[in-house]
């Protein structure tokens, strides 16, 4: 049986983190993700995001967090999101962006999204939103 190819929505680390730290913008992100799931998007992110979620949890520096709670937070943030491996194809794309405002990690996220043919990119980050506009990846579902 052949499955129909689905449209891809790339999720930045800050979107994944907003699932485990409900804050100011979390409701609008929840709304976007809901819209995307209605439209049958598949969610993907880089393995780098898994690392960033991990580093974020360490950075919260919460001594009361047990190892099992730590792993649960990681799993909650990444639930339903397929991971994309980091390879030379992604790094080549990341190196090719000419934007001076884009950092190395941002460029890896954007390069990954491009490499897998993402049509949408969800992020809370202004620099990445700007870069998505510049490469023609949509950032909203309206």
């Amino acid at each position: 049986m052949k499955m129909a190819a689905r449209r891809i929505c790339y999720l930045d680390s800050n979107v994944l983190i907003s699932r485990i730290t409900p804050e100011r913008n979390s409701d609008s992100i929840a709304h976007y993700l809901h819209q995307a799931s209605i439209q049958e998007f598949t969610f993907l992110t880089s393995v780098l995001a898994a690392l960033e979620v991990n580093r974020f949890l360490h950075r919260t520096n919460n001594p009361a967090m047990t190892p099992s709670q730590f792993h649960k937070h990681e799993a909650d943030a990444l639930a339903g999101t397929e991971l994309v491996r980091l390879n030379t194809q992604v790094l080549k794309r990341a190196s090719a962006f000419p934007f001076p405002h884009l950092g190395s990690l941002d460029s890896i996220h954007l390069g990954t999204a491009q490499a897998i043919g993402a049509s949408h990119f969800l992020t809370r980050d202004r620099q990445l939103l700007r870069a998505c506009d510049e490469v023609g990846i949509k950032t909203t579902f309206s």
Partner: protein
Amino acid sequence: MSQLQTKHNRYRYWYHLFMSMNLRLSESLANDLKALSKETGKSQQELAREAIAEYVTNYKLLRFPPEIRHMIIPAEREFGEFYSDNPVTLPPGVTSEEIMRELRQDRI
């Protein structure tokens, strides 16, 4: 407890822990499996389990175009609710945005 009862209880434990199934194979596939088992030193059951696990993982990837399948690691869990039922407590006065900005501070 008799030895027979102990054996029976052990069987029930294993039966409920792992799903059991009968698999009917063609003669040629059965022969190939037997040969592979001999060659690898793994049991036929072990090889069948590995093959099914690999198939199930790969099946999840069929929704993606063939040229990117090798790059993808399937999600371990379904999406479920947007919010975690047990959110992370941040240090007082600190937002997740600030922490993320720090983590990506290699910008101009």
